[in-house]
């Protein structure tokens, strides 16, 4: 707060050219990032958009995308939250190594993720025989799509959740322990409510990444209508044969992703507000 106040106080004495730099910078950023999205909508009439939603290929892809991403997010949150809490609150030997490994999928190209998952979980992969004996089939199955999404999207959630847990004032958790709450109880009743806003932001990022996932899904899960063909794969499928319909389906995905981002913004905004008033 102090820095903002002092910045405002000295604002008049700042060189005007810096304000111009800031303005030009944001204008360039906006123009570049918005142009492709704008182009999708300029080239798609509302009629095409509605027509695209009427095709079974689109609706099945949309349904599959929502289904697989929601399952993936649930797995990520349930398994990942305690892990993020551990990484945020405990120091142990090899912690920075673990942090690097957890974040690795962030920097892996999707093609590498796809090849790696095939080499690990494919029929000829490291765990291929074990999976077959357990009658678990992932490649070319809907479950395989979920596996890919969990792999590529979980670092986005883990990072945010870890940061959120790190920024909790430790005295709250110490107080909870002093007052007789166990570690698990402190985690559930104190840490998670305090870290909620950051966790929601992590869910939004991970969900967005999962909705857009293309390359690794294609390599590991393939592309088949109703089973593994998510919206990005359906878009690519049409790209070769029917560009206008690929555009229309892209527009649908933009709307879904944007609404998701906005909804999370609003929820976490309301959360932050009610948190501040409490």
């Amino acid at each position, binding site marked *: 707060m102090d820095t903002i106040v002092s910045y405002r106080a000295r604002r008049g004495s700042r060189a005007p050219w810096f304000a111009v730099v800031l303005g030009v910078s944001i204008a360039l950023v906006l123009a570049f990032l918005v142009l492709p999205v704008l182009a999708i909508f300029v080239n798609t009439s509302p009629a095409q958009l509605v027509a695209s939603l009427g095709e079974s290929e689109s609706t099945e892809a949309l349904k599959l995308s929502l289904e697989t991403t929601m399952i993936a997010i649930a797995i990520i949150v349930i398994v990942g939250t305690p892990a993020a809490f551990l990484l945020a609150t405990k120091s142990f030997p090899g912690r920075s190594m673990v942090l690097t490994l957890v974040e690795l999928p962030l920097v892996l190209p999707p093609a590498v993720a796809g090849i790696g998952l095939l080499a690990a979980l494919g029929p000829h992969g490291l765990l291929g025989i074990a999976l077959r004996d357990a009658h678990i089939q992932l490649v*070319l199955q809907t479950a395989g799509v979920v596996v890919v999404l969990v792999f590529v999207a979980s670092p986005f959630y883990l990072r945010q959740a870890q940061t959120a847990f790190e920024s909790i004032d430790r005295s709250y958790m110490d107080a909870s322990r002093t007052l007789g709450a166990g570690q698990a109880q402190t985690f559930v009743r104190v840490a998670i409510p305090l870290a909620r806003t950051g966790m929601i932001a992590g869910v939004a990022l991970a969900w967005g990444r999962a909705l857009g996932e293309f390359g690794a899904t294609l390599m590991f899960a*393939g*592309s088949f209508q109703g089973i593994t*063909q998510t919206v990005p794969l359906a878009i690519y499928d049409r790209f070769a044969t029917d560009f206008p319909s690929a555009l229309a389906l892209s527009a649908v995905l933009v709307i879904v992703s944007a609404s998701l981002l906005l909804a999370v913004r609003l929820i976490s905004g309301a959360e932050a507000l009610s948190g501040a008033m409490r």
Partner: protein
Amino acid sequence: MGAYTQTVLGELGASQRTAVLANVKDREPDVTGIVGKLTEGAVDAGFMYITDVAATGGRLKAIPLPAGLEPQVAYGVAVVKGTAHPGQARAFVQGLLHGDGRADLLAAGFRPPPSS
């Protein structure tokens, strides 16, 4: 490839076509993906070009389609009008049709152009 496969399946009787389609697990947008899924053991068979089988160096085995079912797959080559290098372009085409290019194409599994 998908369109050629549709053509082939269209030549089959309805019951055979349904039986094949019932076992389709994947519709890859390009042939590379089919090669990958086959070599990784994700699928047992796929429709692909004989040249792609040859490129795997023996890891995949080609089962030729019955002669009556084989679709006509031909690639064209031409010199564009108004090119800046017409001589070189023509030489390249000649090389593909008759010279070393033809030998390389045949070695890679392509067949001679249908007209010649």
